[in-house]
């Protein structure tokens, strides 16, 4: 290990430390570049966006006007946004309503075979969604749920529930057992144990979990494409409609993409610290 002394002292050297920082910045910029380029392209004309790259140009809002204008035969932007928000917020809310008591029963007052049940929850996550799409499609057709928001609300709830139970369980694990025991002896009901003692302690964890559900549901494409292409279109399917075989489309695709990713990106930026803590705590113990 004597050879590695040079490497070892790397960080302590001031110049080297600055170099490492610069390297980190460079990697950060490289990682962010495709997103930045997409946003940049959304402010260009089609001619500027297609062709050799232009870094300096006169920004225009034409593409945003184009993609948000109402055209017959295409779902309007406001409709699409409403659909997306409706489906995502409602499914996330249902996930939390179902997952909080479930996680409680798997951690704070564990049932006898909590481990098997937890494994069952996680194992449903391993089943490829695509493998089940045919029966889901057929059941959806029978129940008249195709092309409504409800099919997606149900499916997104099922999609995110295992992850939410898994994360919340770990948060609940953090709650000191003595606190709950004391409340139980004082005669607090199960519900009041949950609402007055456990929930306030795990609030940051709840936020992190809900955020992750929000991200996965908002970004989901496959089910939305299969169950819901026409009447209740969500943002992920809407975006794909701006490709074209005949003409340049990069600028308008970029504008639509920028609008489609905006809510999740902003929510993620705001809540990133909480998410790190949430993932870590929710992850291990």
């Amino acid at each position, binding site marked *: 290990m004597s050879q590695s002394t040079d490497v070892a002292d790397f960080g302590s050297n001031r110049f080297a430390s600055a170099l490492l920082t610069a390297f980190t910045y460079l990697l950060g910029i490289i990682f962010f570049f495709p997103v930045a380029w997409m946003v940049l392209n959304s402010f260009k004309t089609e001619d500027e966006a297609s062709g050799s790259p232009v870094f300096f140009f006169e920004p225009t809002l034409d593409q945003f006007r184009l993609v948000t204008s109402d055209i017959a035969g295409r779902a309007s932007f406001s409709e699409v946004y409403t659909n997306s928000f409706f489906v995502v917020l409602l499914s996330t809310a249902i996930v939390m309503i179902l997952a909080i008591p479930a996680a409680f029963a*798997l951690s704070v007052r564990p*049932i006898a075979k909590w481990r098997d049940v937890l494994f069952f929850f996680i194992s449903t996550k391993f089943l490829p969604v695509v493998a089940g799409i045919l029966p889901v499609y057929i059941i959806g057709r029978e129940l008249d749920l195709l092309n409504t928001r409800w099919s997606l609300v149900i499916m997104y709830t099922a999609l995110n529930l295992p992850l939410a139970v898994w994360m919340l369980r770990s948060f609940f694990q953090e709650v000191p057992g003595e606190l709950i025991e004391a409340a139980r002896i004082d005669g607090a009901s199960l519900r009041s144990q949950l609402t007055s003692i456990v929930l306030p302690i795990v609030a940051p964890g709840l936020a992190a979990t809900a955020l992750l559900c929000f991200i996965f549901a908002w970004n989901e494409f496959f089910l939305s494409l299969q169950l819901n292409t026409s009447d209740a279109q969500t943002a992920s399917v809407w975006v794909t409609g701006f490709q074209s075989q005949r003409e340049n489309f990069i600028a308008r695709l970029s504008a639509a993409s920028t609008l489609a990713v905006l809510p999740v990106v902003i929510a993620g930026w705001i809540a990133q610290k909480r998410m790190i803590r949430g993932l870590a705590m929710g992850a291990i113990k």
Partner: protein
Amino acid sequence: MQVVDPSSSEERSDTISEAPSIQRSEEAKKLQKREAWSRRIPLLPALIFLIAVTQIPFILSIFYSLTEWTVNPPRDRTFEGFENYTFAFGDRFFREAAWVTAKMTFWSVVLSVIFGLGMAMLLDRKFRGVGFVRTLVLTPFLVMPIVASLVWKTQMFDASFGMINWFTGLLGAEPYEFVSKRPLWSIIGVLVWQWTPFMMLILLAGLQSQSTSVLEAARVDGATKWGIFRQITLPHLRNYIELCGLLGAIYLIQVFDHIIGLSGGVSSARNLPFFVYRTSIGGGWRFGEASAYSIIVVVITIIFATFGLRVLSGLLEGEDAA
């Protein structure tokens, strides 16, 4: 689904406290039973919902898979036993898709964990703007996968408009059609771009949970940085790395958006889920056959999941002791 009626459990606890204390042992048994049920009730709505939504389609799939059922051209559904299965195992394209799934999942998970670890270590230092850089790195994870695929395809990989070719062109290289020449690796590339931030978040949390006193002690004892990393940091991160692998595998084994967005599903770069989709409502319309494929996929996944759950078991072990 229905939400638990909280009043029911309250009522129960009332009756229990009022019970006469004479028939103790019998009461105790009843009490125990009620107690067990009051523990189970909060779990039931979630459990019932998940069973209904995930298991009913599965059972229907088993039924479909035993039938000959082609919708286009329309024909009557007939029962034909295991014929679809024998056909599936002989299908070259199915085997190809299985192999692609293995490669795609393995490389995208491994590479994003490695890059995520590297990125987490760089961001675990203190410097001006560390939060800003973390935000930059985090962003790809937040971008909608279908958008990420289309943006990479049209604006990064493309031979005439793509930024990668523009950049390599500056260095004198010929333009290269990444997506059509290397569809699998183009997909893996975008997957790694999106999942590195996720791994970075988990691993960063792992790094920051290290006890500084242990690190300090090692440093005082004259341990090298590499030695500290190998003998203290890596063992500490083990659980976190396993969790990264598990969550990554769960999500990356069923990639769909990137395949349709980037390559459109050419046979050298389509995984099992995509293959099943193409056989059924994605253009094949051979529902019986597709259901047999999907059952096989589920069985294979369950085998792999068992390994995954063993990892999970290891993660939970520490809790039992506590």
